[in-house]
């Protein structure tokens, strides 16, 4: 099928009036002026503050918990440990199904008990008075040796593994072989095979084999996890929480606490950064505490707690062997991927396995994935979970092979890049995708064009890499209503973490042909909003946006019907423009939306209110790809790396709000640069985190980041609104590989681990 591609020109000219136009985010002003109310800004009468005692050990038996002294501390209202809670339906194999450690702690920072007080400082003081007797056990920290037979065990055997959260990020039918009930640290395995991989290597002119490692990293949202819960006498549980996934929070609370979904109201407060890490964490413990004390309870994690005991992204080791023919054809790929899951299952090894062999056509492949348990905090999602680890390996190989064969690294990629119909390693064919378009566009970027100039300059280099993401799928719905004054209200159930409500405003304005200022978008709570999936897996515009479009079309139909009755015409003869319904060809027959609003809401009105309804469900994903290029300079005596320039191309399908799309591209590229250059959670041999703060866990600052050139390409998806496809996640994926390739270009040697720190550069150069 011929693919339509265009690089969006910044003015956003098109046949549309609202979508496709750069639009300032609705919630942006509040955020930059400090007016936005985050969860911690909310306060309720009689509210108590919770402080949580975390385990100092990564692995230990809990012999006793004595809270007597803490209870006596003046100002303390309650001290609650596992024994003080009712027998809920816990699932010890599922991080989301555990409140306090009961007999055994499995990672440093795992909650043991909580103190409640009106004054948070008093609660904190009392934490020191809780006496816990631990019997330290062997902490298993290295996932590679943890896989060996005879390794000490991380924990008791797992069973009933629940992978619902992972499915929210990437939805695809793949069998994961669960090692349930077995005394092993391997939680699950994945296996993909195609062709005859050994025969493939025999055909190859260049074979490269290398082991790649990528560090455990943290989402490091500005706002740590924050939740308030209240349980009233009618048995209704209300939760205000910084989550990407209000309905999922509701469902999880229902499962564990045994409260009907209809009795739980979850309000997603404005999220101060989530990146996949704000799905479900502090909600259960806060709700459980509120149920005990029957008072509102607020639990705000400190930065340290959040670093220790949230859900960071995994360390991974990727052992990769690839073979290419002299003409650049990729003929064989063999990979073993090991993802460190921490103390509970949930590592994104499946997407890693899909992407290590999913960017290029390769007739022969064999991919094995292992999800390994260790006594570290269990991992969760970080923007395209698991993809950057695998991409770092395959995209480094593509560069090495191209270099060895004397091929242009972009052409080698172009030759093998997947297209519509090509299978993923799991066998599913790709729908229409824009990978090749991204490759073409990156070759036109300023950074890539500087390659010729940079060539031959000592310690300077340019690198390129690609990355992609499939995305998640969940049904979605939306309501579009006409108000009495003619304005439009859009109600959705999705948390707005990336400007999606602004895109919904544009979509409704486009359908109803009204100015943006006439459309208001609200994210309702789980009792008032129509259902939406979690704002994760890059699916919100793709799914909820579609529902908004359908709802707006439904509302429009209702308005036209009313006008048709009024004008005694057929709806086909009517159109909407400038906030009015017009009878085509008759300038006198005009009905303003305000009039229509009155006609459907006034006392004794003849017509029923206009309430448009949109629901959707799809099984078809709209994968997104990104190509990125970097120019770096290395100080060969200190190892310091300066990123001089960066370019990112992404296929947006259709950029409903090009400003938001560019923002997502720049944000993801920046996070990718952090992963590439400085972010790493470091543990000692006892499994204790050495850098539980944002000083020694180094996010890039503005001064570490280069100017980022953004280029949007648009290969329309088949089902997304106006052709939009997933946007949020692909941008983070190629950063590690892009920098690795640029560094190799600069210094002529490979640093195989990311982040590529100055110390690792000096080691690779043989200077240490």
């Amino acid at each position: 099928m011929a693919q339509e591609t265009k690089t969006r020109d910044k003015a956003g000219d098109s046949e549309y009036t609202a979508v496709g136009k750069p639009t300032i985010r609705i919630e942006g002003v509040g955020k930059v002026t400090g007016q936005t109310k985050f969860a911690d800004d909310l306060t309720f009468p009689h509210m108590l503050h919770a402080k949580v005692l975390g385990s100092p050990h990564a692995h230990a038996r809990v012999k006793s918990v004595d809270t007597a002294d803490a209870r006596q501390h003046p100002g303390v209202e309650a001290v609650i440990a596992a024994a003080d809670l009712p027998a809920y339906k816990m699932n010890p194999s599922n991080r989301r199904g555990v409140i306090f450690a009961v007999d055994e702690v499995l990672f440093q920072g795992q909650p043991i008990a909580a103190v409640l007080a009106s004054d948070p400082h008093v609660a904190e003081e009392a934490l020191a008075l809780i006496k816990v007797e631990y019997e330290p056990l062997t902490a298993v920290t290295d996932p590679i040796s943890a896989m060996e037979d005879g390794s000490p065990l991380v924990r008791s055997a797992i069973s009933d593994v629940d992978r619902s959260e992972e499915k929210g990020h990437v939805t695809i039918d793949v069998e994961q072989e669960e090692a349930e009930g077995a005394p092993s640290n391997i939680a699950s395995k994945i296996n993909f095979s195609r062709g005859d991989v050994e025969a493939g290597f025999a055909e190859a002119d260049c074979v490269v084999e290398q082991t790649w490692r990528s560090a455990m990293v943290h989402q490091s949202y500005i706002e740590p996890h924050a939740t308030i819960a209240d349980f009233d006498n009618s048995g209704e549980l209300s939760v205000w929480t910084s989550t990407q996934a209000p309905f999922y929070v509701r469902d999880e609370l229902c499962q564990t606490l045994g409260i009907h979904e209809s009795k739980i109201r979850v309000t997603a407060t404005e999220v101060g950064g989530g990146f996949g890490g704000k799905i479900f964490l502090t909600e259960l413990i806060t709700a459980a505490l509120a149920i005990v004390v029957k008072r509102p309870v607020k639990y705000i994690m400190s930065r340290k707690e959040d670093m220790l005991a949230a859900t960071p992204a995994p360390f991974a080791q990727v052992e990769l062997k690839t073979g290419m023919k002299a003409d650049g054809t990729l003929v064989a790929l063999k990979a073993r991927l090991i993802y460190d899951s921490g103390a509970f299952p949930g590592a994104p090894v499946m997407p890693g396995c899909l992407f290590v062999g999913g960017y290029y056509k390769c007739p022969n492949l064999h991919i094995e994935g292992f999800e390994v348990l260790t006594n570290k905090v269990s991992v969760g999602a970080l923007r395209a979970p698991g993809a950057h680890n695998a991409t770092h390996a395959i995209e480094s190989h593509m560069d090495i092979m191209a270099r060895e064969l004397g091929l242009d690294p972009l052409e080698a990629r172009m030759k093998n890049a997947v297209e519509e119909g090509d299978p993923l390693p799991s066998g599913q064919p790709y729908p229409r995708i824009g990978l090749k378009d991204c490759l073409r566009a990156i070759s036109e970027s300023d950074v890539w064009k500087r390659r010729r100039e940079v060539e031959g300059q000592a310690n300077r280099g340019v690198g390129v890499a690609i990355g992609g993401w499939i995305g998640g799928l969940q049904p979605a719905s939306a309501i579009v209503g006409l108000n009495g004054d003619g304005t439009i209200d859009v109600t959705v159930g999705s948390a707005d973490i990336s400007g999606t409500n602004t895109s919904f405003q544009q979509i409704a304005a486009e359908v109803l042909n009204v100015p943006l200022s006439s459309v208001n978008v609200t994210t309702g709570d789980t009792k008032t909003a129509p259902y939406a999936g979690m704002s994760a897996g890059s699916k919100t515009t793709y799914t909820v946006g579609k529902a908004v479009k359908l709802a707006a079309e439904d509302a429009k139909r209702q308005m036209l019907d009313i006008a048709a009755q009024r004008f005694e015409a057929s709806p086909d003869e009517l159109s909407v423009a400038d906030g009015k319904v017009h009878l085509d060809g008759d300038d006198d027959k005009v009905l303003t939306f305000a009039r229509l609003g009155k006609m459907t809401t006034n006392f004794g009105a003849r017509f029923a209110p206009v309430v448009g309804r949109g629901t959707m469900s799809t099984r078809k994903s709209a994968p997104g790809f990104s190509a990125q290029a970097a120019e770096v300079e290395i100080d060969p005596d200190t190892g310091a790396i300066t990123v001089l320039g960066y370019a990112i191309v992404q296929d947006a399908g259709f950029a409903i709000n090009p400003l938001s799309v560019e923002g997502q591209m720049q944000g993801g590229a920046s996070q990718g640069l952090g992963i590439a250059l400085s972010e790493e959670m470091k543990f000692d041999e006892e499994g204790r985190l050495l850098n539980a703060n944002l000083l020694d866990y180094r996010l890039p600052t503005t001064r570490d980041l280069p100017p980022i050139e953004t280029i949007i390409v648009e290969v329309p998806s088949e089902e997304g609104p106006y052709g939009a496809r997933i946007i949020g996640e692909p941008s983070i994926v190629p950063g590690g590989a892009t920098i690795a390739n640029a560094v190799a270009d600069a210094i002529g040697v490979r640093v195989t681990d990311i982040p590529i720190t100055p110390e690792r550069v000096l080691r690779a150069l043989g200077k240490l």
Partner: protein
Amino acid sequence: MRTFNFYAPTALDEALELLRKTDGGRPIAGGTDLVVQMKEAATKFPHPSSIISLLLIPELNGIEFDESTGLRIGATSTMSDIADSADIREHYPSIAEGAGIVGSIQTMNMATVGGNLCNGAPSADTAPPFLVHDAEFVITGPNGRRSLPADEFFVGPGETALAPNELLVEVRVPAPADRSGSAYVRHTPRKQMDIAVVGVAAAVTLTNDDRIENIRIALGAVAPTPVRATKTETFLSGQPASDESFAEAAETAAAECNPISDVRGSAEFRRHLVGTLTKRMLERAANRARGG
């Protein structure tokens, strides 16, 4: 953070009296070290019951320079005050460089030089510059005033020569001789908001025939305290200010320092950086001494 009392005296005597009366009271200036430590308190750090602000005490503030008597920096001068001072930039460039890289603009507007020194971190960015400029620290306390040379002030990580309830009043730095120059640089993974993995300061005075008449080198973050590289200084005295002698000095400095491995870098990496940065700072300081 736990609860505490807060005092803001306006006279030095009053502050000393409060320190004496509030058992376990603690002075605070910008709070950029202390508040972070109090937040993390629970185990590591005895949480103060009272904190006594020094910021309203006029005697502790101000920067003055005189060609003959030298420089006086009040303890509560901020990093921004120091980095922006034309006198310091001209006559003590390494001090301006050390102060000018502390954290970010926001940090520099809060952080004081007294806090930086009294916090006693081996990585404190103003310590190596003061060491190479032969600074004197003026201290007051229950037993009156005293003055200590910079290299006797630092005792261990988080430990200084301050006795309980003593306060740092000011830092005095002699006027530099003619044909003198100094420089400070640190290695950090990030370009701002970071802590030195290694910091190196150098100050040189050159003879008219470009020999090294006087030399000071100080290293941060490679020992329990900021330290002078005395062997390297001895080696360089009287040598020509040349590439060769600076290269050899770099090796000597790398050999004489004794860093540890921690989360910010291995001992090997630090030692390598000491060599690289010592050479660079000697070159920069010598250039400045030549008027460059």
